[in-house]
């Protein structure tokens, strides 16, 4: 049963990944990419790492891919024009492909077959969320904090890049808006006919 499920999901992953680069429409590419992520989460569930699977879906499918889709949909690309120059890149693409294939062959030839060590998804802990927690917050505490700092730097960088102080711009003052009362906004006038205010 598990083998059938694995074969099915693995086939979907490979096919969907192929369609990511084969699809003519970039939006379709992103949709295939989402299917790839989702099926990869299915593979993680099969080896018993359900926590990682859910994180993959929440982070990549639920957030990152949404932003991808957002950006790709907003782009106004002329696909015909885009496809015209592709033939020039074939030799380069072929080279990269051959190198990757050679590396894979080298690794498998060097005895790197299926690892036989501890394959338990949650060693020394009842659930794999706890197992990941133990490892992450004891053995790799410094690296974890470092990753946090890297993300913080990226965030600050993004804010600095987009924050501009232009003069003469009307900005919203929420406190002013919500603090408005009827007395300061509406005034009753009684104009005499033919004279105006």
């Amino acid at each position, binding site marked *: 049963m598990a083998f059938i499920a694995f074969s099915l999901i693995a086939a979907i992953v490979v096919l969907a990944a192929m369609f990511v680069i084969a699809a003519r*429409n970039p*939006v*379709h590419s992103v*949709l295939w990419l*989402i299917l790839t992520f989702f099926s990869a989460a299915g593979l993680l569930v099969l080896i018993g790492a*359900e*926590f990682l699977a*859910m*994180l993959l*879906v*929440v982070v990549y*499918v*639920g*957030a990152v891919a*949404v*932003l991808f*889709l*957002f950006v790709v*949909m907003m782009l106004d690309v002329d696909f015909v024009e885009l496809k015209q120059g592709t033939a020039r890149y074939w030799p380069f693409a072929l080279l990269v492909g051959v190198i990757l294939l050679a590396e894979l062959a080298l690794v498998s030839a060097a005895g790197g077959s299926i690892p036989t060590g501890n394959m338990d998804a949650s060693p020394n802990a009842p*659930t794999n*969320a706890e197992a990941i927690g133990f490892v992450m917050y004891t053995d790799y505490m410094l690296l974890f904090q470092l990753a946090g700092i890297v993300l913080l730097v990226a965030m600050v960088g993004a804010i600095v890049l987009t924050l501009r102080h232009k003069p003469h711009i009307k900005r*919203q003052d*929420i406190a002013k808006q919500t603090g408005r009362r009827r007395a300061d906004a509406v005034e009753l006038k009684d104009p005499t006919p033919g004279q105006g205010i």
Partner: protein
Amino acid sequence: MSNAIESLGSLWGPLLVLGQIGLFTLVLLLSIAFLLLLDRKVWAGVMMRKGPNVVGPFGLLQSFADFGKFLLKEIVIPAGANKAVFIMAPILTCTLAFVTWAAIPVAPGTETGTSWVIANLNVGILYLFAISSLGVYGIIMGGWASNSKYPFLGALRSAAQMVSYEVSIGFVIVTVILLVGSMNLTTIVNNQDGGIQNWHVFSFQYFPLILVMLPMFVIFFISALAETNRPPFDLPEAESELVAGYQVEYGSTPYLLFMLGEYLNIVLMCAMMTILFLGGWHGPIALGPELTANMPPLLLSLAGLAWFMGKVLFCFFLFALVKAIVPRYRYDQLMRLGWKIFLPTSLAAVILVAGYVTFVGGLS
């Protein structure tokens, strides 16, 4: 009966699951039909109208009449639409809305610690969060594939809105996970046993935390409104600006699927509030073991189911009331509320609850 089960052998397990799925689907579809009516009746009641009252007694069969109308209409696909994606969007919305219910426990099981649920997942709450965060795809795909301006604008708005409010929903869920120490939904519900004061809204078993959890419940409720595109946060389909947002080009069965998915998501949010904060299937007064020992377990399960459904109904009533009473937000107000008020508040709550669990001790 037992002979029949034995003769089925290894097929019994999958057949049982199929049966459970069928039962859940049937009950959900029937409840949605009447909840739709309730929604319209509450809405009408606030406006001092009568609401649907022609089809069947008190308009009880109105939803079924609507269902027939949706099914019999012709499906129109706009000429410039991206056909495959256009058709797939409502199907995806509806499927995802159904799939989430696989992990929702609705009643206590006959043995302690078990519950009536299709799949009792260890990461149940994370599963719900993950699948419901996929709901945004149906809307973006529908809006984009329609190849029309209003649907596209509606889809963009809704994507930004749902991604924003998911963050605070996530943090609110984390506070509950911290208190319980488990992501299993059955464990979360059983942590609130022992009467109304132990429900996570009030959290009397972790005494001063009522000051944190009660606001968290309110944040969850408001974020749920935004997440399901309900008024006052129905910006994606604000009819005065965008006609009907991402649904403009949809009609007949595809539209029905969109609407069904939307209402399923609303009921799902109600169920999540019930499970996380309102004690799930536990009644407000705890029956001692000396009382429950002599009762048949099935009766207790059914009583639990009744409590669960009652609480979900109560939450849905609140949703319907809000729809009738509160005027629509402006888009900048919506974003400000999500990012500048809810996010810092829920983040602070996570730190407070984590501190409480670490230093005062909450994990049992």
